């Protein structure tokens, strides 16, 4: 693999990503204590998920080396989450539009 060039960000890079993940975790915890629901209902959850997605992106790109991987790997990684989104979307468009009567 050596001939394909350095496929990592080096120790300072790894420590940087680690720092971002730690900060993200602490921010997730602190934001959860603040009431953001006045912006719109579910704002707290949205912020928590946005931070989680950011953390995931850093792990996937740098710790899992997708940043340097082939297009096929990119496609596999994205496809997994794309199908997950389809499952969420179709499940919820059913559940959220059902009548609550009779349950």
């Amino acid at each position, binding site marked *: 693999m050596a001939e394909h060039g350095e496929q990592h960000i080096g120790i300072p890079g790894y420590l940087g990503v680690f720092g971002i993940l730690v900060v993200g975790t602490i921010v997730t915890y602190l934001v959860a204590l603040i009431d953001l629901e006045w912006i719109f209902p579910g704002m707290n959850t949205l912020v928590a998920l946005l931070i989680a997605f950011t953390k995931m992106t850093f792990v996937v790109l740098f710790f899992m080396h997708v940043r340097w991987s082939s297009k096929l790997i990119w496609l596999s990684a994205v496809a*997994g989450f794309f199908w997950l989104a389809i499952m969420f979307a179709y499940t919820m468009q059913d559940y959220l539009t059902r009548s609550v009567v009779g349950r």
Partner: protein
Amino acid sequence: MNGEFSAEADIKRSRRKTREKILPIRNSKFNMAEHTHDDHYHAPGLQHQFDDMKQQVDSVTIGMWAFLAQEIMFFGGMFTAYLVFRSRYPMAFAAGSNYLDAFLGGLNTLVLIVSSLTMALTVYYAQKSKRNLQVLMIILTMMFGTTFLVVKYFEYADKYEHGLVPVAGWNKVVGETGTDADLEEESEITPEKESLPTPTDAGGVKAEKANPNGEFHISQKDIELVKLAEREGYLTESEKIGYFRDVQFGADGKVASFGEIDVEKYTGKVKIFFWIYFVMTGLHALHMIIGLGIMLWLLYKAWLNTFSAEYYTPVEISGLYWHFVDIVWIFLFPLLYLLGRHFLAGGGH
């Protein structure tokens, strides 16, 4: 003369041909290295079905990502269940979430992130052919993985102690009287208990705390919060149907009226949260245990100095698995531990 020469040459030529036929069979490794020396270098870890290291690494990596895509769907099914029930009963989910220790959950998130860092460094040192640092990083990764499981054990034990395992009989059995410490704790939480009608009402603190059959139960405080949310108009239609008794529907199909809160029904909804909590964190913990097994094997291999800049695919692939398990927890932590924390921190809306 000429003929003799050519006959001699023929013999030599045929001998050489025989040697070329036999040699690859007798000493194929040596011969192959001789033959392919100019084409490309043969790495020690290359298996015979692949042309070269790049093809092998690409094949193995795409295989692992196919497995990880399957894992996304595996956990995705449970995340979908979470989504459906949380959207139906947000109040019950927030109540269940507040029984979890957010500090321990956050601590475990940090522990996993550190273990992801040491895993990434394991791959780094394998790429640099540094055997000792590799071994050290693998041991550190295993230590943090074990720490995670130990913290998880204490969390589960706490749920068992407090009657939060959603299966009757699987919780700690508390006698009719309970202990003094239990009574004190409970009386602090439920100062307004006398005003509450409960179906299992035996009149006092003792009956509420006692858990002779090891059943799942929640605190009176949660019931109070539902009443507060109902007064303030925060409950959804599905929550009114799910928490209250004597629900009547109007002509428009909406909830027209309902009676008192049904503690049994509401407890059942909190129970759903704990089912999801135990199944999701339990399967995540199972992934951690499998990951530790993989790390043990990796430690053995690294100890034997198997990996180098030319061949470190097993380290890389094991790392993909370890990081994936970390990612699952990155989502589990806010979704399970941090619901409605602002509600308590800010003293309600």
